[in-house]
């Protein structure tokens, strides 16, 4: 067994055993607590649900714990030091995006690469799947502008498909089958991706140095958020994700993740291994594979190629949704895609870790339903559970008090809460110790931001839980969510829009409170932390889409713009000036 696999096996074993141990302990404590008034079927059901949901929380906590130590003990990735010989193409798939903003990113990345003085061949291809003719026409105009600015004839390319068969995966497959042999490596981006030239070249050096490396994934930082919601998510991604990614990288072995963009692939490996078939049956479970990235990673690993996340690579950026509605729309797509993996998880020849990763992806969307089921079962248990019988023995004059299991119940609640909060506190401590917190405003400011983000995410969690549960149910009942284009921009919502999107959640929240009040009045107070944010859903959706105060949820990229982002802004400003004539070629 190679040292990579040995290290991964130890990390996987630790994460699995500790999370299973925590889940089993929580389940047993709950069972003992439930048994005080007699063990019923519903107690056992609730104990099972606690087992599953605690395991999910504990798995996240274990991943964070694995990522806490710095990666200095890991061997440095191999890289070529001489001139780069392979030819690389940067793929920019677009689908009804703002062409000026998107193509300005290409200009910025091209400038950034050229600023390094490299002689490496790095070309760009825009792969348009745009359906809107007006946007397609604007794409052609902006592309001419881009080629003229970059002097890009022979380096920058554009092609638009007549039909967007297979969506993004089909778009890339179409390119590989028609033009793939012209390059050695493909850097796959999203329309909102930005990468520093140095980072792109480093990725090429690493994939060139390891002939078995099929895919190299970076951890993209979220940038450009303006709203309260967007900034909070941006902060959380910037502050916590590096540690979680390091934990994930410790467990990956040779079957790491692919997140669909900001990753470089070896074209030969890709073409041999990643031709995705249509799944049998109609959507949502059949048809084209929606969450193609997980599957492509699994297929590369199945074919013997290494798929690796290198969490040390900086200079990789993306944008995130600015409001809860856009987040929910994106999540709906991911939900359908991940649940569709139930059809793939048994595919022949997949590595066990790839199967486990697919199951984790499915579980991420099932978990909210497990919590909801637990709440419903708790209300049912309170309704059907009888009064305590203090005189269980006939003709015995003295009351028999049940064992006081209150400390165990409190311990369980603290434990579950700790699994949620403890990793974040430890990540903060890591950031302070390593000096990473400086980029987030220092120890005090980053702690305040972390606690604010924790409070905000706890407040909106029931709203997101409602959207996620609806998505899962829609998929299970066979409703196809389609492929709506992403919304970019500031994401500000009018209250009417927030009301239209969230009124049903308010109704469910109110209904839940009313039902609990009738069936189990004692539990009503305990349900309020979940039910009240649901009642306030439209207000929360609206408020979190408002612009955030300057400096709130500070991230290093906000404090000091990365060079490639500055270049992007400069190109956009340049293009905003009226242009009369452009010479191309």
């Amino acid at each position, binding site marked *: 067994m190679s040292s990579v696999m040995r290290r991964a096996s130890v990390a996987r074993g630790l994460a699995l055993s500790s999370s299973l141990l925590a889940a089993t302990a929580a389940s047993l404590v709950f069972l003992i607590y439930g048994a005080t008034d007699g063990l019923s079927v519903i107690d056992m059901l609730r104990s099972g649900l606690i087992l599953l949901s605690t395991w999910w929380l504990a798995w996240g906590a274990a991943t964070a714990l694995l990522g806490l130590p710095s990666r200095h003990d890991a061997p440095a990735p191999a890289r070529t030091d001489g001139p780069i010989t392979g030819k690389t193409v940067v793929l920019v798939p677009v689908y009804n995006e703002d062409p000026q903003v998107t193509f300005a990113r290409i200009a910025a990345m091209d400038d950034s690469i050229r600023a390094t003085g490299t002689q490496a061949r790095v070309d760009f291809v825009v792969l348009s799947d745009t359906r809107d003719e007006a946007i397609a026409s604007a794409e052609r105009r902006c592309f*001419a502008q881009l080629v003229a600015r970059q002097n890009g004839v022979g380096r920058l390319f*554009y092609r638009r498909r007549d039909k967007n068969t297979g969506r993004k995966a089909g778009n890339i497959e179409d390119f590989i089958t028609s033009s793939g042999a012209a390059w050695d490596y493909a850097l796959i981006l999203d329309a909102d991706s930005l990468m520093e030239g140095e980072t792109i070249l480093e990725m090429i050096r690493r994939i060139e140095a390891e002939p078995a490396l099929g895919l190299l994934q970076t951890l993209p930082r979220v940038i450009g958020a303006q709203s309260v919601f967007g900034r909070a998510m941006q902060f959380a991604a910037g502050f916590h994700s590096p540690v979680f990614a390091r934990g994930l990288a410790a467990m990956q072995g040779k079957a790491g993740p692919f997140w669909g963009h900001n990753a470089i692939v070896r074209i030969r490996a890709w073409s041999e291994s990643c031709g995705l078939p249509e799944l049998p049956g109609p959507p949502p479970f059949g048809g084209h594979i929606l969450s193609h990235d997980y599957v492509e990673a699994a297929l590369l690993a199945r074919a013997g190629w290494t798929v690796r996340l290198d969490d040390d690579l900086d200079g990789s950026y993306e944008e995130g949704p600015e409001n809860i509605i856009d987040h929910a729309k994106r999540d709906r797509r991911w939900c359908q895609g991940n649940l569709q993996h139930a059809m*793939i998880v*048994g595919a022949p020849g997949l590595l066990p870790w790839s199967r486990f990763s697919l199951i984790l992806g499915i579980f991420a969307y099932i978990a909210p339903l497990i919590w909801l089921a637990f709440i419903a079962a708790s209300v049912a248990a309170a309704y059907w559970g009888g009064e305590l019988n203090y005189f269980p023995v006939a003709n015995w004059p003295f009351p028999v008090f049940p064992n006081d299991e209150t400390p165990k119940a409190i311990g369980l609640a603290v434990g579950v809460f700790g699994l949620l909060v403890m990793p974040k506190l430890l990540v903060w401590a890591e950031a302070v110790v390593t000096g990473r917190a400086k980029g987030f405003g220092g120890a005090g400011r980053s702690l305040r931001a972390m606690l604010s983000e924790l409070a905000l995410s706890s407040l909106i969690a029931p709203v997101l839980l409602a959207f996620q549960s609806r998505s899962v149910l829609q998929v299970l009942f066979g409703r196809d969510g389609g492929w709506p284009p992403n919304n970019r921009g500031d994401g500000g919502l009018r209250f009417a829009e927030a009301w239209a999107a969230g009124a049903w959640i308010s109704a469910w929240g109110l209904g839940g409170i009313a039902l609990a009040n009738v069936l189990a009045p004692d539990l009503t107070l305990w349900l309020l932390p979940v039910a009240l944010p649901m009642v306030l859903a439209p207000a929360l959706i609206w408020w979190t889409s408002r612009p955030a105060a300057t400096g709130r949820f500070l991230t290093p990229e906000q404090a000091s713009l990365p060079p490639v982002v500055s270049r992007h802004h400069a190109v956009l400003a340049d293009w905003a000036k009226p242009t009369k*004539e452009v010479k*191309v070629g």
Partner: protein
Amino acid sequence: MNMHVSNVGTERRQDADLIDVMAPPLAPLAMPKQVLTVQAGPVRLALGAVFALMALLRPGQRRAG
């Protein structure tokens, strides 16, 4: 090639010419479709045939057929 790319009045024809020039080179590469579904073995195929026959024996199925 000279092109006007002001915000208004761009010639569609010129756009098309440019796109012809800017299409990526033709360099085909085979991308075989991967097997993702479990292939039915002889036992599963035999069971499938039995269930299909049983379904045909049902009155409702006979009428539909």
